[in-house]
């Protein structure tokens, strides 16, 4: 329960910090950190325009997408506190329920019969498919390292001993940040601020969404960021007392947001054709982690 509350709280200002960081690095003052959330609330209050091509799929898709994110969040623990749902192999469920959301957001985009949205849908489907092995091998390595297969047990029994394990922690954080960027369609693979439909990935998929649905999708993105931030934070909270854990959690989330902002300010989006290779490279990082774990366990000597 605590993890859910914390993640929801973080999601309220996460995007704000990212935007603020981007503003500051480009020499502007920028909006307040709650501005993105205010935008979402404003959208929730609005009516919506629907395309005459669309069917009921388009109506239910954003809600299912949002529900899948909530469901995925329920699985994530917080320090020594279990997530609301926790069982052996729950990270498989986590990944698959997110994939379900992705399925619906893709067919929701295709439902408009647009000449642009299929493009985004196609790219999103391909990128998330390529990013998936990285996540599974990463979690598989930690399952191997700790001997457990649920998020909660993996994080509680994860302890850093040797230098290699610190290296692994850093690598894992890197992989998770990159997965978060890909899943949320942010900078190195997708530019959310682009104004040309042909260069969009996620944004082009939601061109026809408006009002409440668009609000759900945007809030979903915020929640997804908070969710990956929580995963990263879980590497560090360890066995501290609850207050310190919460503090660490918030600090990690804010640092993560600032990092996303800086990354977005100082890097350019890759060429679309190179994205696939880049994302697949993440899998090799994961395999590196896997070998690192084998090294710690004394299989390579």
């Amino acid at each position, binding site marked *: 329960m605590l993890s859910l509350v914390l993640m929801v709280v973080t999601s309220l200002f996460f995007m704000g910090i990212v935007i603020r960081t981007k503003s500051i690095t480009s020499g502007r003052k920028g909006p307040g950190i709650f501005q993105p959330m205010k935008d979402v609330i404003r959208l929730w209050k609005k009516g919506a325009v*629907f395309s005459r091509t669309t069917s009921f799929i388009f109506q239910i898709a954003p809600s299912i997408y949002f529900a899948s994110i909530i469901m995925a969040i329920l699985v994530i623990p917080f320090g020594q506190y279990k997530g609301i749902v926790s069982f052996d192999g729950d990270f498989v469920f986590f990944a698959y329920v997110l994939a379900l959301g992705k399925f619906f957001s893709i067919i929701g985009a295709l439902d408009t019969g647009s000449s642009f949205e299929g493009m985004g*849908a196609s790219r999103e489907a391909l990128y998330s498919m390529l990013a*998936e092995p990285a996540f599974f*091998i990463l979690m598989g390595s930690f399952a191997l390292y700790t001997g457990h297969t649920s998020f909660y047990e993996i994080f509680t029994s994860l302890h850093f001993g040797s230098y290699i394990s610190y290296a692994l922690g850093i690598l894992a954080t890197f992989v998770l940040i990159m997965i978060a960027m890909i899943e949320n369609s942010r900078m190195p693979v997708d530019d959310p601020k682009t104004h040309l439909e042909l260069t969009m990935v996620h944004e082009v998929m939601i061109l026809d969404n408006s009002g*409440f649905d668009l609000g759900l999708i945007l809030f979903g993105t915020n929640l997804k960021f908070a969710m990956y931030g929580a995963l990263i934070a879980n590497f560090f909270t360890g066995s501290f007392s609850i207050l310190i854990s919460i503090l660490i959690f918030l600090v990690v989330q804010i640092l993560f947001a600032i990092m996303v902002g800086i990354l977005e300010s100082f890097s350019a989006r890759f060429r679309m054709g190179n994205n696939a290779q880049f994302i697949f490279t993440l899998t090799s990082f994961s395999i590196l982690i896997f070998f690192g774990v*084998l090294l710690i366990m004394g299989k390579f000597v």
Partner: protein
Amino acid sequence: MVYIQTYIEILILTLLLIPFIKMKWKGIVTVSAVILNAIIIGYIALPALMGEKLEFILSGTIITSEIPIRIDALSGWFMLLINFTVITGALYGLQYMKAYQKQTTNISLHCLAFLLMQTSLMAICIIQNSLVFLFAWEIMTLSCFILIIFEYQKQATLKAGITFLIQSHVGVLFLTLGFIWVNYRTGSYDFEAIHQFSTTFPPVVSLGVFFAFFIGFAIKAGFVPFHTWLPYAHPASPSHISAVMSGVIIKIGIFGILRMLQLIQTDYVVLGYLILVFSVISGIYGVMLAIIQHNLKKLLAYHSIENIGIIGIGIGLGTLGIGQENSNLVFFGFGGALLHVLNHSLFKSLLFFGAGNLYQATHTMNIEHFGGLVKRMPQTTILFLIASLAICGLPPFNGFVSEFLIYSGLFQGMKNIAMLNIMTLLFSVFGLVLIGGLALLCFTKAFGSIFLGNARKDFNDTPTESKMGKLLPMYMAAAGIVSIGLFPKFFLSLLLEPIKLYADKMKFMEDISPSIQISDTLQYIGYCAIEFIVLVAFILYIRKWVTNKKPKPIQATWGCGYVGETKKMQYSASSFIRSYRKLAEPLLSIEKHKIDIEGVFPSLGKHETHPHDKIEIWLLEKPWKRMRHFFIRFQFLQNGNAQFYVLYGTVFIALIIGFPILFDAIKKIIYFLNQI
């Protein structure tokens, strides 16, 4: 025994009756016979599944010797799931075949073949005498052949049928080889002899025997590289036959493999690794080719290969578990595989039924021609969507449950940190994840371009929703899909007895704790599935509540200000997978024809892709061409002159008689030379 007698009586009565009754009744009689027989089989199979092994021996004939009939939990499971799909297939066929009512004799033959197919499938599950088994296997192959070539007027159908027939017989050849091998060594046709054979000879020999059987059964199951008949046979046959074939007939190959695993005692660790590698390759290759197909049924056929791969991963994992004495792996592996057999039979038959609805509404199977059918066929759309989600292994449907079991098994297996073990399992995890991701790409493509957006082509008759008769069997399959997704624990508890058959093979039987632990986890998954559905309903309710009174104008789709006709501008299936195709091109064989648009006043541009199967080209087509090239030199022998053929006969007889004499003569000469 009484049940089986009744079964055979009903069968013979119906077989005799069908050719003589009116067209209207043929289908109904067949379907009622199928259902009646399925109920009888249910009475036999259900106790067997619960662990009451039924065994009796028929006297047989001099040639076959005694025919043992053994119905254990494994047979029970397969018999039940086969019958479910056969019933839904028959019900669907009843409506589907109404379009072909004028072909009276053809329909009669079709009905007879359908009944024979059901019976032969049942026979294969229970007969444990090699000769009679092969006999039943042959009946199944022939009846399937007749079912496939229903539309024999089309050349492609006939070609597909013959491909199926030939490749199935290559499979029979390998099976016969295995059975003869065992019979030669033990002198018995009983399946128990296979077990004895494998315990008395060293593991390497029994591994050889296993592989003879494995290849034989793998041709039926569709493991890569023995899959080449599958993508032809499925599109050619009527939809309910494709559903039954993909749903259960290829599973009989899996049954065969599982049966042999249970009988043959060998080095399970090596076997486990081999099956794992085989299966991962099958899975990835199947789905990689599925994505680039343009024909919906062919796409589904390649997906069958993928799912056989997933089942195979489960089997390989379980086998590894037996070898490593790890009951966790046995439970997860075989549990996942057996459950996936059921799951796949449900969602794949549902998908093929959906394809059948589409075919009868539009008379095309080309994905590029569809579009916007959600408004015309809403029920088919929802059912197809459920099946698509299930086949991608997404919660809260059944595909997730079996894939989850296999994942859990793979991660559990990693606890044994022997290098080879860990690398194989990592490879399998990687494969399974990739399969899942690619399946998602494939089915968003299929579902999106068939049902969503605008219609891409105007059909002569506006497509309309199918009749209830066709939708009912689809709802039955969908109910199965949803109930397994929501109550996985119940279905796993049904599987405990079949899994025990394999768990008993371990030398040091551990306690049954893994089964309890697994069913606890599955219970959680069931809860999560229900929770998720409640959550979705809740959010949709809030959405409705909030947006109820808001204005909801209907406008054109966003097109940068363009509001005209966008039918031809929307994303097509080929463009949807273009980035994937570019990525995977080196591994695949895609024939492309392209006319670029050039000039100020461009003429017609064109872009065509024809996906080919690389393995088929390298394994069948090229060697075949070489062989033909070689044999064509001997064509002069076939001159059509009867006298020459008599001469060949005479020469042949002379050779047969003369050869031993010549041999003796040479021996004598050598003896003579030695004497000097």
